[in-house]
């Protein structure tokens, strides 16, 4: 088999430069066929998603905004091991670890915590490898529909702990009632 005729996809078509017949060269038949095709589309279902009223269904593997989790007692799970930063292919994550003081037992779960935890949203590709790498189940990519907000300043795209850590009221809601007593 000659290399020119091999078609891996099975869709390859030979270009035909044959001379057009009289009816073909009139184009009227072709134009009429085209008109019939377009008129059919008048009656087909419209695929538009009317955005503010309807929203597109998210795919099951959708990955949105990151969140640093708290445990069932409201303590930050992150132990600043740096595995997420290591696994990040875009090198978007930076962090600085610090030792937990005795009076901070209720704030951080492990002896070590991240005093600074930053994700550069200009670099982040939302691949979810940080989530997979984390041994403490501390970082998750949420299903949040809120995309990275636009800004005019590059610094505004570096999300610190103020934006990443799970808000306390959400943590309270998640806490089981028995633990609250």
């Amino acid at each position: 088999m000659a290399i020119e005729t091999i078609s891996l996809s099975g869709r390859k078509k030979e270009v035909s430069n044959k001379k057009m017949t009289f009816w073909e060269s009139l184009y009227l038949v072709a134009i009429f066929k085209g008109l019939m095709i377009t008129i059919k589309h008048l009656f087909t279902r419209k695929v538009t998603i009317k955005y503010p009223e309807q929203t597109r269904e998210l795919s099951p593997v959708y990955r949105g905004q990151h969140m640093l989790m708290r445990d069932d007692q409201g303590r930050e799970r992150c132990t600043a091991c740096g595995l997420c930063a290591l696994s990040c292919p875009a090198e978007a994550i930076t962090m600085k670890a610090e030792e937990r003081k005795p009076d901070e037992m209720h704030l951080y779960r492990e002896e070590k915590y991240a005093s600074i935890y930053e994700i550069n949203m200009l670099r982040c590709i939302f691949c979810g490898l940080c989530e997979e790498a984390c041994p403490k189940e501390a970082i998750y990519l949420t299903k949040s529909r809120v995309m990275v907000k636009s800004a005019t300043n590059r610094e505004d795209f570096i999300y610190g702990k103020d934006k990443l850590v799970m808000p306390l009221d959400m943590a309270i809601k998640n806490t089981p009632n028995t633990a609250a007593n």
Partner: protein
Amino acid sequence: MEQAIIIEKSVIIIAVFALTMLMAMYSTLAERKIAAWLQDRIGPNRAGKGGILQPLADGLKLFAKEEFIPNTPNKFLFFVGPAVSMSAALMTSAVIPWGDKLHLFGRDIILQATDIDVALLYIFGVLSVGIYGVMIGGWASNNKFSLMSAMRAASQMISYEVAMGLSIIALIMMTGTLSLREIAAGQEGMHWNVFYQPLGFLIFLVCSFAETNRTPFDLAECEAELIGGYHTEYSSMKMGFYLFAEYASMFISSTILAVLYFGAYNYPGMNWMEENVGINIANIIGIIVLFLKLCFFIFFYMWVRWTVPRFRYDQLMRLGWKILIPLSIANIIITGIVILLVE
């Protein structure tokens, strides 16, 4: 009696003018809607119910836009361009018979702004003035690309006017008149000219597309080759005027197509209606029938626009000079022979 005629004609003129404006306005919405539907979209639906106020919103936007005038050698011409286009597009509606006649206040009111014997010649005369709008606009823009585009548009319009005029001659030979009213009246019942002049109709249709600058002959606009076309330098409502003129002329040429070839206001059983129901009702139905016919043609214009890609310039000229003109001459000869044989 004189006064009555003046009042009657003024009412008709104002009504026709308002109708043309309204149709042009809503053609813009229809264009966008039909484009959307043909592409499986929904189209504008935010302004008003189903987007019904969209033309008003568009107009408001055009008025509110910044007016930018290039450093042109002749500012006056720059302003005149869109106005010429617009008035040429609107003037043709004066001779179109919108219906046969109404019988009101003991008088027969002819539903036509003016019934002149050379209506067809008048239409062709005014249509060719429309080229000036494009040409002046392109020249006064002081922009090479606009000028080139205007030249192209003008040569296109002139070429197709020849074929259009020739295709009409066969029709005139058949009907023996240049008056649109008589042509319309001659197509009583189902004796529509399209059945006797299919080739002439086809040529006329293609030429109308070219004359109104619609796809596939919209070479006056060409984002790909000449930035934007002859109206590149126009902004705000002057640009709006050019676009509006296109829609107005589309409406008028749809009407002419309906009147010349598709039986105008005639519908089967019109005589029966006149005798049994009354002349007024029969003619009001006639107006509605004409309206439906021209709406179909407007739809057809848009349908073709969203189906057929634009011609290349040399293809356009080849089609005009080498195909349509010989064809229309052949059509004249065939019509002549047939008339000779029949008589």
